[in-house]
Each structure stands twice: as structure tokens, then as C-alpha cells.
């Protein structure tokens, strides 16, 4: 089956969704990401949705699930690049993605993840979290 690639960059996992996902593909991404977070001890997940022309309730739920599962596994999630028309439609649909961090682009998203990780790197947080 077709899969969306997940790239590892340092402590982060990066995903760029570039296809119009059918539901099974979205579910596969959710499962793959969760296992990769556990396997790689990733501390952050960045999901680039700038190529997505719509986010409906199913894809919205997938994004919210990924963020929730990542949080349980001690990783931050940031969703970047949502097109304005998609954002307007999503809110009108009734989905505001509570609990999901967003940033305008990949650069700002990475900065957000780095900032979230900074206390750990500086040793101010529990040192046992370092791997």
C-alpha cells in the first residue's frame, strides 16, 4: 500500500503531505507516525500541509489524533502551512483543532519545536529525558 514518507531530522520527524489523501492513507500515516515517535525517541513532529487543498473532519481528526498521541509519547506536534481558504473552511465546518500547535511555514514551525525542546537541552528539565 502507498505510504506518506516520514523523514527524521535530529530529534524531529518531518512529514509533508503532498497527495490528496484517501481515508486509509490518513489512518496509515497516523499509525506510522506514532510508531516512529516511539522507535526514534523523537521529541517533535512537524507536519507540512501546505499542499493540502482541503482539510475535512476526517483529516482534521487525524491531525488532532497525531498531536494527542505524540503528546502522550512526550513529543510536540506543529502543523505548518495551512492555506487561508482551508483555515476559513475548517473553522466554518466546526473544527478549530484545539491542542494542535500551528505555524505559518516550516521555518517558524521548526523554531517552535526548537524552543519547546530548549529547556531539555539546557538541562533545566529532567535530564533523564535526554537520550
Amino acid at each position, binding site marked *: 500500500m502507498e505510504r506518506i514518507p516520514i523523514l527524521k531530522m535530529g530529534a524531529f520527524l518531518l512529514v509533508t503531505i503532498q497527495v490528496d489523501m*484517501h481515508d486509509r492513507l490518513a489512518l496509515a500515516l497516523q499509525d506510522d507516525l506514532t510508531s516512529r515517535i516511539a522507535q526514534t525517541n523523537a521529541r517533535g513532529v512537524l507536519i507540512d500541509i501546505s499542499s493540502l487543498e482541503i482539510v475535512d473532519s476526517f483529516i482534521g481528526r487525524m491531525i488532532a489524533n497525531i498531536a494527542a498521541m505524540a503528546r502522550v509519547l512526550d513529543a510536540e506536534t506543529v502543523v505548518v502551512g495551512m*492555506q487561508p481558504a482551508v483555515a476559513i473552511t475548517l473553522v466554518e*465546518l466546526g473544527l478549530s483543532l484545539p491542542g494542535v500547535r500551528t505555524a505559518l511555514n516550516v521555518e517558524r514551525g521548526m523554531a517552535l519545536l526548537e524552543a519547546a525542546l530548549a529547556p531539555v537541552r539546557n538541562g533545566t528539565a529532567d535530564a533523564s529525558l535526554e537520550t
Partner: protein
Amino acid sequence: MPVLKHEILAIRDSADVVLVRQRVRHLAQEAGFSLIDQTKIVTAASELARNTLDYGGGGRVTMEVLNDGVRRGLRLTFRDEGPGIPDIELALRDGFTTGNGLGLGLGGARRLVNEFRIESKPGAGTTVVIARWR
């Protein structure tokens, strides 16, 4: 009302839901919809196509480009022969779901379009008609 174009697509699996999104996008562009209007009707179509598949056991969508003399519109009719909806008011309520979704499909789709009509009887399937005007 004059129908400028008319297409029918079957909805049998989740790849068909993607195909419905793509055809609706194409027709909305042809009808001269703005990007936001395109996004709204495509998103509504995605919700309803998924409902047709998940709750209706599959069905079909009829897509029509309309012209009422002044403006153009897009009308989509989703039809299934599934179990039907016993309580339509309840099904339209946000957060109500009998499946594993968020319960935003029907109510959400209604908010994204200008016209919304639903007919359903237990055992006789469900028809949802939506329209959006430019």
C-alpha cells in the same frame, strides 16, 4: 433552472471519495467559484461522500452546474440505498455520531453551502442535496 453540465460518479470506496473531491473542484473552477467558495463546496462534498460510503454502504453523486440567469451554481445530490437516518434532527447536531467520526459531517456540510436538503427514511436510503452559488 438550466443545467449547463451534468455528471454522475459512483461512491464505492475511499478512493472514490477522493475522485468526488477532484471532480467537484474541477466543476467549481469551471463555474467561476472563488478559491474560498471552491474549498467550501469541495469540503462539504468530501463529508457527504464519506457519509454515503460509511453509513449508506455506498451510492452515487450527481453533480450539476446551474445557471439561474444571473449567477452560476453547483448542485450535488448524494444518494444511497442504505439503512436511512431515523432521526434527522439528531444526525444534524454537531457532535452526534453513530460511527467513529467527530459528528461534524452533516451539520458541518450544511454550514458550508447555501442550500441544503435531506430526505431519509429508515430502510429506504438517504438523499442529501446541497448547492452553492457563486
